[in-house]
């Protein structure tokens, strides 16, 4: 029996869990996937938006600006890679210049600071690879980038360290509210998960189910809405080119959204994208030829000289677009004890801290909860031992002295040690799949995309998890890696 169950272990669900964990409540998070952050929270642009984009007065604008204000301190507290890299909205011809002023005005209305228009020379001085046809830009000094899945994982770990239970591989297929006010969940999934046996019950329920939030809502509320999936496809490029950019580069937004951007990531790779396409099937995270071509074409407006041979991978994410056109955050209108964080499309990542704080506050108040005396700090991050200067090398040497596995490099592109991989498995909510290892260590994510290190990582996983290597998966059930078995 829980006080609060949160459905969805994306950045929103995990942030809420972490904030609620400060109170004397018994909390659980359930997710259908095999790891946290398997939804939109793993596949997005990772931009910490300054807040000039959202419609003034909207919930999006409010949570964007307030979330943004907290992101830097959250990231540093949680040891999550974050950079205040600034952003530029480019006017690529004279006709686009008025658009910049409109955005500036909107930003000021939303309360965004550090916004100003800059001229062509200033743009090219900051970003030499930008299209020389550029006429000027709106500079957002406060914009940043964050690693979205690191943030989600760190929040989940921090919640887990403070007693929050996570049920992964556990899909919610039904939800009932008894007259007593108690909710009972029907779940499906991996029979080994703890959820089986006794049904999960809770006093309060939070719907943070991303693109499926409408379905969860339908189980319990008559105040319905519709979430449709809008796919965004991306290209990722090598660090060689990523390192030559600093700011996030937007083109002027159109009615279809913020358009194709070009941005370095916190890991120095470069991403270009996303597209924006309504799709009927909510599991359809394909990339398509047309869209991948389109991205290259449109991105060439921003940077005509992007090299053609430095693509590492392509991926896509699904935006949870709500027919109400805005975020739905807070108490449900018709069911006591039911809370929503639905329709959280962009800038949902940026908004996460503010959404979590607001919901946690509401729930704690409604359940008459008190702050715990003891709230543990986030875990130290996995030691990756990067950097070739004396300080980093000495730190690495110290780690190796403790555990020689820090000196065995498994992933040669990203220099990830065997110890780091073991850590990724042993930590709370440890990795159980190859993709989960990848998100926690970057092993497999470099230029060779796992060509060299996959066999060794699988060996380590089998050893740590005491399973046969042929049972390992890429991202949970049915994504088996070695369907041919052994010789």
């Amino acid at each position, binding site marked *: 029996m829980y006080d609060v169950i949160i459905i969805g272990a994306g950045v929103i669900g995990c942030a809420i869990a972490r904030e609620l964990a400060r109170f004397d409540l018994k909390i659980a998070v359930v997710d259908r996937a095999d790891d946290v952050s398997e939804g939109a929270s793993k596949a997005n642009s990772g931009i910490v938006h300054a807040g000039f984009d959202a419609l003034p007065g909207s919930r999006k604008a409010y949570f964007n600006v307030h979330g943004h204000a907290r992101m830097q301190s959250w990231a540093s507290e949680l040891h999550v890679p974050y950079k205040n890299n600034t952003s530029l909205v480019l006017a690529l011809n004279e006709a686009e210049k008025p658009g910049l002023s409109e955005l500036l005005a909107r930003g000021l209305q939303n309360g965004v600071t550090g916004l100003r228009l800059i001229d062509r020379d200033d743009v090219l001085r900051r970003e030499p690879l930008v299209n020389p046809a550029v006429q000027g830009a709106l500079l957002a000094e406060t914009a940043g980038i964050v690693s979205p899945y690191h943030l989600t994982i760190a929040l989940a770990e921090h919640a887990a360290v403070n007693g929050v239970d996570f049920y992964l591989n556990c899909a919610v297929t039904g939800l009932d509210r008894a007259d007593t006010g108690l909710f009972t969940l029907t779940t499906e999934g991996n029979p080994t998960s703890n959820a089986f046996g006794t049904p999960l019950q809770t006093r309060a329920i939070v719907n943070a189910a991303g693109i499926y939030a409408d379905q969860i809502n339908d189980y319990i509320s008559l105040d319905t809405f519709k979430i449709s999936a809008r796919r965004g496809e991306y*290209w*990722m490029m090598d660090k060689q080119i990523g390192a030559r950019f600093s700011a996030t580069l937007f083109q002027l937004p159109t009615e279809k959204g913020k358009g194709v951007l070009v941005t370095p990531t916190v890991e120095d790779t470069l991403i270009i994208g996303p597209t924006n396409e309504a799709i009927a099937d909510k*599991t359809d*995270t*394909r*990339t*398509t*030829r047309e869209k*991948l071509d389109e991205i290259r074409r449109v991105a060439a407006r921003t940077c005509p000289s992007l090299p053609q*041979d430095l*693509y*590492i*991978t*392509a*991926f896509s994410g699904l935006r949870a677009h709500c027919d109400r056109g805005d975020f739905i955050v807070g108490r449900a209108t018709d069911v006591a004890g039911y809370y929503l964080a639905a329709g959280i499309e962009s800038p949902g990542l940026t908004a996460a801290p503010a959404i979590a704080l607001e919901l946690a506050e509401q729930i704690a108040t409604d359940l008459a909860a008190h702050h715990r005396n003891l709230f543990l700090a986030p875990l130290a991050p996995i030691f990756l*031992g990067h950097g*070739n200067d*004396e300080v980093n*090398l*000495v730190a*690495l*040497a110290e780690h*190796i*002295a403790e555990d*020689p*596995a820090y*000196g*065995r*490099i498994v992933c*040669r*592109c990203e*220099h990830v040690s065997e110890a780091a991989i073991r850590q990724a498995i042993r930590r709370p909510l440890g990795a159980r799949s190859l993709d989960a290892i990848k998100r926690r260590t970057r092993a497999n994510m470099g*230029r*060779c*995309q*796992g*060509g*060299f290190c*996959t*066999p060794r990582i699988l*060996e380590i996983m089998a050893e740590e998890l005491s399973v046969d*290597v*042929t049972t390992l*998966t*890429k*991202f949970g*059930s*049915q*994504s*088996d*890696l*070695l*369907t*041919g*078995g*052994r*010789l």
Partner: protein
Amino acid sequence: MIPRRLCDLVIIGGGPAGLAAALEARRQGLQDILIIERDQQLGGILNQCIHNGFGLHYFQEELTGPEYANRFVLAVEKEAIPVLLNTHVTAISPERVLTLVHPAGVEQIVAQAIILAMGCRERPRGALGIPGTRCAGIYTAGTAQRLLNLGGLLPGRSAVILGSGDIGLIMARRLKLEGINVKAVVELMPFSSGLTRNVVQCLQDFNIPLKLSHTVVEIHGTKRLEAVSIAPVSPLTLTPDLTRVQKIACDTLLLSVGLIPENELSQIAEVVIDPATRGPLVDQLLHTSQPGIFACGNVLQVHDLVDDVSFEAELAARAATAYIARQYAVNKPILRNITCGEGIRSLTPQRLDQSRLAMPLTLNFRPSAVYRGATVCLKDQHGNVIVSSHRKILTPGELARLTVTADHWPPTEITSLMLSIEYVQVTKTANAPLAKGQDQGEAQPGALKPANSQLTTTQHVATSATPSQATQMTCIACPVGCQMTVELDAQGQVVVTGNQCKRGEIYAQSEFSKPVRTLTTLIAVAGRQTPLCVRTAEPIPKDQINSFLASIHAAQITLPVEIGQVILADLGGTGIDVIATRNLS
């Protein structure tokens, strides 16, 4: 403080390049040598290449990869050359300070000279941008090779292979021999980029279709791969015709779409990289742009044959040894650029040190298309031909060579050189006397046009020999790949037509009467993860491969096993033994 020490010659990488370099440096009298290898054993990529086809040039003997490596490893042990295993070089400074990470800690070595021998990596899927889902079941061919040959793990049950380079071809046969259904090998170009020998022995022998001028256009399957869509491509633009898509059900896709020299370290050392080879820019001594840093093997350029890697490494070792002995200071390098002209995709060395024209210069180059009956020309800045050589065939699949000796050089000053492929009316050149019957076909004076491949889109398999009927076969003795017809005449004599030289006839005769193959495979060892790799000591009759395979797989192995040890004597009464090609203890 990070401990620091000095060393004369540090070799990064313990693959065939690093091993050959170390041995040659020792032969040159150098004492203080160190080989650094990140893996737990020496041998590099050869450890996972359990097939035969190595060493024909270096040892005049056909070996498997582990056997080839083992010969060098034994020699390195005998010479007591120090080796650091499980050690990753994470950085090199331009001043030749190397940073090493290993399970005993972090250290730095200041080297007099460094030989880069880090090999290459495979191009991943993303680099191709194949659209579709991101499900499990997509591996590079090399990863699958490692999983299977070193881990005894089968990636899937049915596979499509994209890319017909040697690795793709070899893996097609490997999977097939271990019971995986290989549905097709798909190749973008109108020709295979692998050796003809491999097309015949890895695909045709096993009835695996080769879809030339095709590519994978989409990946299907939400969790595990379920199918791939393939489509024909226009040979000129290489764009797929999406109206002719065909779906092939399979649970595994192997990518064999190119190798990229592994030069991240070189770049940290600020070594200049040639965008064409993606390896360091070197002069004829394999000296990179950084003084005292040399490069050889796959880190310099992707090689087809390990034998060439070994020879190249020896050259680098001699140069590095001379550098350490300060013989370099005698004459200052005068560097001239050698550039790629028409028809040349990449070449090494990219620079000529003009102060060293006395030593022969061997240019390695990769043509950008298939050329038949063309001439390779090296010209100076005025367009004067320094050396030219006529070739029956040049294909991107084979690294070609052109040697320039001291007497070729003009007395005048050279400021730049260019290598190109031309179709010229061939008068007799000193280097390459015309083979009889050459100079026909596509050779057109003046017009430089890649020759169309003779292969049809789906290659058909040679039907087995029946006396009355003509048999078609492709000659595998050289890259020309003549299409030959073999039949019995009225007297019962085997008659071969279509061959351009005697070697073709010899091959056809033996293929026709009694085709034989060396069989390489794996045997699972109880309680051990790594399977034992074995081969037949001699080639066995081709048509008996399948029946022998079962008895080989059933063999019981008692450890330890030594390389060369007989595992199964007198296979099926052939008098041929099955021998171990790796030590396993």
